[in-house]
C-alpha cells in the first residue's frame, strides 16, 4: 500500500509518555478503555437480542424501523470516520488549517447523526414506542441512547480540539491528542456498524 511521506514517522509528540514497552501509555490506556467498551456495548446488544420479540402489544421492530432513514444516518457516521482520519493526516503533516476543517466536518457529521437519532426517537415516541412500553422498547432506547451519548461526547471532544487549535494550543507536536480522539470516534463508528446490522437489518422472528 502506498504511503504518505509525512505520515511515515509522525513527529514525536512532546506529551508522549513512553513506558518500558516503548509504547505511549496514554494510547495504551485508550486501547484498554476501548476493549472494555466492547463489553459495555456487548451487554446492551445481548439484552436487545433477548428482548426484541417482547413487545407487550406495542410497536415491533419489523414495523417501526425506517431502514432508508437509518441507512442514511449510518452512511453519515461512516463518512465521519473518513473526515476524522483526514484530520489526523493533516496535523501529522503540519497542516493545522486542514486539521481544523476536517475536525469541524467530523463534528458536523456527528451532529447530523445525532439530529437523525433525535428525529427517530421522536417518531417512535409518537408511534407509541416509549422507554417503558415493552422490554423491546427499553432495550432499544438504552442501547441506541448510550451510543448517541458516546457520539455526543465525541462531538464535544472534536470541538474542544478545534478550540485548542484556534487558541494556538494544538500543533503538529500534539498530533497524539488528535489520534486519541480519533480512536474514540472510530470506535463509536464501528459500534454503530454492529448496531445497524444486528438491530436494524437482521429480521426478527
Amino acid at each position, binding site marked *: *500500500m*502506498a*504511503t*504518505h511521506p509525512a*505520515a*511515515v*514517522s*509522525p513527529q514525536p509528540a512532546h506529551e508522549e509518555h*513512553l513506558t518500558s*514497552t*516503548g*509504547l505511549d501509555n496514554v*494510547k*495504551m490506556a485508550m*486501547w*484498554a478503555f*476501548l*476493549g*472494555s*467498551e*466492547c*463489553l459495555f*456495548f*456487548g*451487554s446492551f*446488544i*445481548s439484552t436487545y*437480542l*433477548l*428482548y426484541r*420479540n*417482547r413487545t407487550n402489544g406495542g410497536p415491533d421492530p419489523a414495523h417501526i424501523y425506517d*431502514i*432508508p432513514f437509518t*441507512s442514511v444516518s*449510518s*452512511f453519515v457516521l*461512516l*463518512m465521519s*470516520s*473518513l473526515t*476524522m*482520519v*483526514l484530520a489526523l*493526516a493533516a496535523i*501529522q503533516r503540519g497542516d493545522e488549517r486542514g486539521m481544523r476543517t476536517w475536525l469541524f466536518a467530523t463534528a458536523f457529521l456527528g451532529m447530523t447523526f445525532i439530529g437523525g437519532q433525535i428525529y427517530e426517537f421522536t417518531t417512535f415516541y409518537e408511534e407509541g414506542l416509549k422507554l417503558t412500553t415493552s422490554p423491546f422498547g427499553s432495550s432499544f432506547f438504552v442501547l441506541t441512547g448510550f451510543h448517541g451519548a458516546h457520539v455526543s461526547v465525541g462531538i464535544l471532544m472534536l470541538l474542544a480540539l478545534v478550540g485548542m487549535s484556534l487558541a494556538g494550543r494544538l500543533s503538529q507536536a500534539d498530533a497524539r491528542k488528535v489520534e486519541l480522539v*480519533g*480512536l474514540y470516534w*472510530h*470506535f463509536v*463508528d*464501528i459500534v454503530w*456498524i*454492529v448496531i*445497524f*446490522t*444486528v438491530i436494524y*437489518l*437482521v*429480521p426478527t422472528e
Partner: protein
Amino acid sequence: MASSELHAPREEEVRHEHPTPRKYVWIAIILAIITAAEVAIYYVRALEDFLVPFLIAFALIKFIMVALYFMHLKFDSKLFRRFFVTGIVLAFFVFTVVLLTFFLRPETPGVTG
C-alpha cells in the same frame, strides 16, 4: 545508564507507515459500497434465506476495515491490537454464553416469549 540504553528499540516501538489520504478515500468508498450492498440485499426477497449470513459478513468486513486502516491497527503495535481483540473476544464469549443460557432454558422467566 543512558536513557537510550534503557529504551532499546524493540518491535513495539517501530512506527509503521500510514496510508495516504487518497487511500483513506478509497477505503471510505469501499465502506460506502458495502453499506449500500447491505441495504440492497435487505430488500431482495430471493436472498431472504441467506440474508443473515450476508449481513454479518458485510458488517464484519466493515468493522475490520475501519479498525485496521482508520484506527491504524494494521500499522501500530501488536499490543494495541491484543487489547482490542481481547475485549471483542471476551465480549463475544461472555454474551454468547448468556444468550445460549437463556434460549436453551425455556423455563427462564419470560425472556424469549
